[in-house]
């Protein structure tokens, strides 16, 4: 079985986000970028499936600016076999919407015929939580979102999902789209020899136009602003003082 893993280049999760003064977006120039943490979990799960003999090839895909090739190299260094880079934007500030990404991914799925698509459940930049579900819709495939456990047997996958009430287990027909949540696994770090080897792994370069997909936005960004700041609080010296302050504020 072939596994397709879409990965996104996003601001590193440790970087403090700054809104641009003109309100046009978040400043991403000269900012550390990394693979979306949820996508790392998806790559790791694909590698584990391969190690368990349930997958034979892992194809990583990234859609965005040319620099996304760094993100793909990370996926290759972790253990993906080859990569497809789809250039869909010139400016690092251009975020390709999930619908357009899903359309390109659906075309790639038609070409590559994977048995499973493993995605992160959301990207930590736009926090949309939509791409996997949209790919599934466009392909008419089954979907299992927010996975914390994945078990593939024959033509079905049993997936435990993190939901509001706790955990839900469902069984989906393969081929399927699975979006992964935090507790599925702990992604490995790429070793130095694997980073060197990854440089020689194949990476195809395509454009959105190659797939005939229009990536123009459906949601026009009117403005981007800072959230309201909280007024500075105070430190209290003891539990007694805390209880007094809470009573004073009418909070208890």
């Amino acid at each position, binding site marked *: 079985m072939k596994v397709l893993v879409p990965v996104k280049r996003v*601001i590193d999760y440790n970087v*403090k*986000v700054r809104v641009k003064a003109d309100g046009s977006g*978040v400043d991403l120039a000269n900012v550390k970028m990394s693979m979306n943490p949820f996508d790392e979990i998806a790559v790791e799960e694909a590698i584990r499936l391969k190690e368990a003999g349930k997958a034979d090839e892992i194809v990583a895909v990234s859609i965005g600016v040319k620099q996304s090739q760094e993100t793909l190299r990370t996926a290759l260094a972790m253990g993906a076999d080859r990569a497809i880079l789809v250039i869909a934007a010139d400016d690092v500030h251009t975020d390709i*919407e*999930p*619908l357009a990404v899903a359309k390109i991914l659906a075309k790639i799925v038609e070409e590559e015929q994977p048995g499973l698509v493993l995605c992160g459940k959301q990207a*930590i*930049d*736009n*926090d*949309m*939580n*939509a*791409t996997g*579900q*949209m790919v*599934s*819709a*466009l392909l008419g495939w*089954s*979907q299992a*979102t927010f996975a*914390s456990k994945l078990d593939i047997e024959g033509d079905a996958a*049993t997936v435990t*999902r*993190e*939901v*509001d*009430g*706790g*955990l*839900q*287990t*469902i*069984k*989906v*027909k393969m081929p399927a789209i699975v979006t992964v*949540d*935090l507790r599925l696994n702990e992604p490995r770090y790429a070793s130095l020899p694997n980073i060197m080897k990854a440089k020689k792994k194949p990476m195809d370069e395509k454009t959105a136009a190659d797939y005939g997909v229009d990536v123009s936005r*459906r*949601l026009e*960004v*009117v*403005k*981007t*602003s800072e*959230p309201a700041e*909280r007024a500075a*609080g*105070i*430190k*209290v*010296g003891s*539990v007694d003082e*805390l*209880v007094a302050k*809470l009573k004073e*504020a009418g*909070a208890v």
Partner: protein
Amino acid sequence: MAVLLLAEVNDGELALDATAKAVAAAKSLGDVTALCVGATAAAAAEAAAKIDGVSKVLCAEDAGLGHRLAEATAALIVSLAGDYEHIVAPATTDAKNILPRVAALLDVMVLTDVSGVVDGATFERPIYAGNAIQTVKSSDATKVISFRTSTFDAAGEQAAAPVETISATENPGLSEWVEDKVAASDRPELTSAGVVVSGGRGVGSEENFAMIEALADKLGAAVGASRAAVDSGFAPNDWQVGQTGKVVAPELYIAIGISGAIQHLAGMKDSKVIVAINKDEEAPIFQVADFGLVADLFDAVPELTEKL
């Protein structure tokens, strides 16, 4: 101008708070028709009919819609979509699962976790874990929206609106439910509780979480946890507060042994009063806390439980 609102129905029961908050958010967009879906949904439909602002309820009961799996539920919503300009829901895990599928089938974008309505096409939503608020204007004919419930007040009650029974569409049969593991609890629900007491990595173990729970029970509060505490196995996943967990905005939020990572702050910084108890005085949680207590939580929490 009409709105189709997917009411939150769990095992035949209406989640009133989440649904009423979404109705309040949607009211200004047009006439709200609430859709109640499930293997059983009639009781939920009756309850939804009494939410102020609901003009009609559609009730679809079918075994194939049990547990509201995405494929069958999305197919039903798409079959109804032609009559509506907005398709909305509270941003629960079910809605996050279903709505993007609906949007893609309609060839429109989805707007998730919307925190503000500017007009019928323009909405505000948090991005980058709430570190920025983006205002976006949709050019799509149908707007598919999930509302972040913590930013809206629940709609009140009204005389019951009419309920109409509709049939399910053909089940694509792509997925089946196996089991739910839901912890039964007498505590208030995390996303609607007036007080939330949360523990982090500093709590140290699953056993020590009993201390957090004791304080919560004293206050009639819900119990939350940071991602670090859930990852470490101290607390179940459904307690997680943060960017990828639940977003809460109670009257009082007490963060215990939580350092205050960006992704945790994203889930609680709109709380009215925030208390932080942490032995590390440099912990970022103190920057958002109204009242900070630098102390060993193992001394401070039992003392606080006793004195409140």
